[in-house]
């Protein structure tokens, strides 16, 4: 029997399309519109062409925020992915302890961003925080409000604490899907632990790991609340990431034009990197399937 092609089901997508238009597409168009104008408030706008883009492309402020952001994302990915895989490999496979570990691992994921920020803000304080106080008692000069390196370490450790579980859980799900026969075959071949990991576990985890990397990259690239609560972007500008800078510009200074141009470039970078990840991911799946 010949299959009839009927594309009418696409009309069912219309409500979503309408919703997305109002919640994402039109606001984004407004941002593009603001980026070529200047405003002195009172909803009066003046044409300013590509002036803001030109100014931002030559501003140290944006470039340093971008480098800080890239460095932050690179560092947390370099820590969280191997650590998450390591945790996933060492989690119990079944029984009570497997469930126990799963619950334990998912706890940090359930805590809202600003609460995580507050936890670490207090945890790291030298006067009342457990971490800060202990470090001070050990004679280590640690102060995240004064020292840029300490601030960076705090923000990174916080992110690792918050999100490594995500990588671990996804990796764990990938591992669970490997049939026992694979391990038995490896045992017969007397494959070493490393080889089992390299040729069985890692390839089978690749798909979910790519998703984990993509999620972690996008989230860390857009991170705002946690570093804002802990360091407020300080000391100085040491932990002022892109979104913190953007909010300062858009809401603090109310410079709508430059902020719009800034967010567009921010958006383009995210779009590019996400597209690369997505393409790599789908191609991996096609090659496997």
């Amino acid at each position, binding site marked *: 029997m010949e299959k009839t092609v009927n594309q009418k089901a696409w009309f069912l997508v219309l409500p979503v399309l309408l919703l997305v238009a109002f919640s994402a597409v039109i606001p984004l168009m407004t941002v593009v*519109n603001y980026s*070529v104008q200047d405003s002195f408030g009172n909803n009066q706008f003046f*044409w300013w062409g*590509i002036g803001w883009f030109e100014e931002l492309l030559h501003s140290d402020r944006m470039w340093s925020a971008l480098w800080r952001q890239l460095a932050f994302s690179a560092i947390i990915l370099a820590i969280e992915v191997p650590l998450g895989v390591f945790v996933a490999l060492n989690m119990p496979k079944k029984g009570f302890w497997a469930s126990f570990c799963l619950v334990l691992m998912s706890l940090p994921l359930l805590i809202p961003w600003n609460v995580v920020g507050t936890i670490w803000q207090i945890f790291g304080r030298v006067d009342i925080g457990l971490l800060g106080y202990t470090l001070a008692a050990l004679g280590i000069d640690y102060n995240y409000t004064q020292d840029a390196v300490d601030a960076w370490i705090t923000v990174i450790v916080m992110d690792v604490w918050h999100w490594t579980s995500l990588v671990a859980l996804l990796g764990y799900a990938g591992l669970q899907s490997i049939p026992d026969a694979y391990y038995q075959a490896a045992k017969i071949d007397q494959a070493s632990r490393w080889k089992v990991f390299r040729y069985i576990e890692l390839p089978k985890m690749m798909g979910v790991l790519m998703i984990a990397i993509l999620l972690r990259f996008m989230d860390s690239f857009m991170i705002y609340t946690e570093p804002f609560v802990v360091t407020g972007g300080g000391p100085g500008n040491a932990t002022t990431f892109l979104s913190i800078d953007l909010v300062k510009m858009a809401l603090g200074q109310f410079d709508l034009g430059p902020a719009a141009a800034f967010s567009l470039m921010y958006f*383009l970078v995210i*779009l*590019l990197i996400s597209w690369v990840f997505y393409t790599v991911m789908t*191609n991996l799946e096609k090659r496997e399937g």
Partner: protein
Amino acid sequence: MEWMAWTWPTAAFFGVIAILLITFTVLAIRFPETPRTGILQIETTRGDRLFITLLGSAFINLAWLGLVGENQPYALIVCFVYAAAVFRWV
């Protein structure tokens, strides 16, 4: 729409993108195609190539603005060359 401060250049910009999207939708319906693998070693359809073109063009324009800094319209020529290359080889 006065309060949203729309301008003609932004309207033209989105108009062009809308026309492109509609054209490619019509093309996809009238002349269905199979994806092909180009120099990037990835499968692409016409729509994918349009996306790569538009995204790349944004970066070409920004690069021109940051590195050359004048005669911005000439960046469009680079974009058209880039678009032709993408549709030919990617």
